[in-house]
């Protein structure tokens, strides 16, 4: 299996085309003030989105956040209550699904059970202006793309789940849509297959150059797959950006908590100087420094957030401004890293992730149960959040 998908920087670098285009061209897909209400329930609430050509864009959120409804409006299965949807400069809002240059890969794959793999892939082509041999060529090309050429005469129930997923992808790509929508494309696969398929999807996207919009509840999947992603909650878009931007610079408690794990502390601003804010955090039992955000004033209540891997653990008091003392309450050894749960004097428990970069024996590790330890972090790694 391929290496674990944790190196976010490397993944972003895999989208040179999207990055280059982002600078020049107008947005390929524009969602303007789209709202969808079902009776008194608002599923999607004034969403604005701009997506560039050739991007893999993820809509990320928990169940009921409105991501699937937004996807279904892009496909044409739901009409927006308000707002408009443009694809490649054309207004799509009032077009039925069968007149949009958009195809969708369904979460259940929705393969036609009474047709062979080949017929499934060919289905969309019968409405296109093509000769029979062009159609046959396209089907062959698509099956080769997803490595299913040997299975063309099987029925959907005669192939495995992973193969069905690839048939669904080939079928959705066969018409060469301007936009491909993927509804939880990997949710039905087991973990091992999911990782392999992620890279396969990216590879296919790169080969075809089709713009992808992916709906997912899995933050790791969204971060690995996408060039940019939007975090949704209660029908609203909370933040849009690259995986790095959303992970390292979340704009709200909700986004910070949804993507990855994080420690939150109630705090008060004491002082702001240049780009460093001094913050009183009684739960940490210390006054610490953090990178300032615009619009802070002394006395203002604020949330201080620190990701577990940004904390350093040591036995002696470290140099620098942000040193906190505590006691090891729990310790989990995962091999490549360890998770510590540190109890602070205030009673709060804080998580730390520490990479085991040196090979050490059972009795030589940095800290053990009940040990008194010091924690520290770089001011630039601490996140301040207004809400």
């Amino acid at each position, binding site marked *: 299996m391929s290496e674990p998908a944790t190196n976010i920087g490397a993944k972003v670098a895999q989208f040179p085309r999207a990055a280059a285009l982002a600078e020049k061209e107008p947005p390929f897909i524009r969602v303007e003030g789209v709202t969808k209400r079902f009776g008194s329930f608002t599923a999607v609430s004034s969403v604005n989105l701009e997506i560039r050509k050739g991007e893999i864009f993820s809509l990320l959120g928990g169940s009921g956040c409105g991501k699937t409804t937004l996807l279904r409006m892009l496909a044409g299965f739901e009409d927006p209550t308000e707002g408009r949807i443009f694809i490649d400069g054309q207004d799509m809002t009032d077009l039925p*699904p069968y007149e949009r240059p958009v195809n969708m890969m369904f979460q259940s794959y929705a393969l*036609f059970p009474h047709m062979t793999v080949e017929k499934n892939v060919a289905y969309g082509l*019968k409405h296109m202006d093509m000769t029979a041999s062009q159609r046959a060529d396209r089907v062959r090309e698509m099956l080769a793309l997803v490595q299913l050429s040997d299975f063309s005469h099987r029925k959907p129930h*005669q192939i*495995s789940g992973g193969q069905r997923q690839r048939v669904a992808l080939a079928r959705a790509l066969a018409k060469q849509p301007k936009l491909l929508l993927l509804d939880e494309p990997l949710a039905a696969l087991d973990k091992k297959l999911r990782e392999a398929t992620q890279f396969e999807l990216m590879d296919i996207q790169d080969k075809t150059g089709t713009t992808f919009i992916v709906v997912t509840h899995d933050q790791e999947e969204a971060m690995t797959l996408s060039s940019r992603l939007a975090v949704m909650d209660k029908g609203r878009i909370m933040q849009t950006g690259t995986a790095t931007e959303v992970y390292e610079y979340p704009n709200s408690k909700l986004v910070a908590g949804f993507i990855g794990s994080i420690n939150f502390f109630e705090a008060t601003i004491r002082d702001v100087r240049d780009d460093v804010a001094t913050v009183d955090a009684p739960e940490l039992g210390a006054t610490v420094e953090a990178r300032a955000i615009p619009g802070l004033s002394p006395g203002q209540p604020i949330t201080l957030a620190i990701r577990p891997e940004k904390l350093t653990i040591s036995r002696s008091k470290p140099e620098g401004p942000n040193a906190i003392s505590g006691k090891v309450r729990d310790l989990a050894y995962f091999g490549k890293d360890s998770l510590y749960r540190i109890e602070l004097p205030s009673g709060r428990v804080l998580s730390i992730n520490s990479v085991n970069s040196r090979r050490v024996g059972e009795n030589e590790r940095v800290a053990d149960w009940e040990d008194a330890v010091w924690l520290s972090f770089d001011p630039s790694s601490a996140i301040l959040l207004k809400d």
Partner: protein
Amino acid sequence: MNRRPVFLITMLCFGFAFFYIPIISMMVYSFNGSRLATVWGGFSTKWYISLLSNRQVLKAVILSLEIAVLSATVATILGTMAGIAMARFKRFRGRTLFSGLVTAPLVMPEVITGIASLMLFILMAEYIGWPATRGFTTVTLAHITFSMVFVTTIVHSRLVQADEAIEEAAMDLGSRPWQVMKDITLPVISPAILSGWLLAFTISLDDVVITNFTTGPGTTTLPILIWSKVKLGVTPDINALATITVVIVGIGVFTAGWLLNRAEKRRELDIQLAYQANQ
């Protein structure tokens, strides 16, 4: 824990006995050489031979088959449409009323349906002049009315199980709603439509009550013929006629069940093979 569930087996035997002893004794007595239905007079097939030369019986059989085929076909078309409407149009005004009205005949006493049909036909003949007399047309119409609901129920339950996303997928790939119906929905529910047709066919074939109300002079279906003959006393030729009917209906129902079952078994086997190949 390996003890046989004696109680369950006993109950099963009683159940089978309850259902089939009457039918089996009727079949045995159809080979009775005696003229008296209840006295055994040796094995004979003479009643079957005499049936085949009885024009009245043959006419009734053909009429019954004609009515059954025609009414089952029309009922299947209408019932399928109603089933699709109930399963796919989720939010329309009066949906509950509609499904209530469609399924009500399922629990309506046949006598009531029969009287109601008769009243309607009399009024129609009086005011619009059609159907002028009661007979083939009125019986067929009445059969359509009450067998349609069975088709609707079967089609509806099949559609509710089917993944609605496959219809959306077809639309997403460029098919208009009628093409989706033709390419996807109908093929997927075709086994349900077929079993609906067979059910409507058998219901029409053995109906006495409603036929009795809606038929007219000269239109004698097989069950009506048997019924009228029984009034003069049970004779071995009626046993033979009933045996033939049971065999025909039995073969039809068994074939339909076997076809559906085989398709399902083959599907399961394929799924297993696919999983094994994937290991």
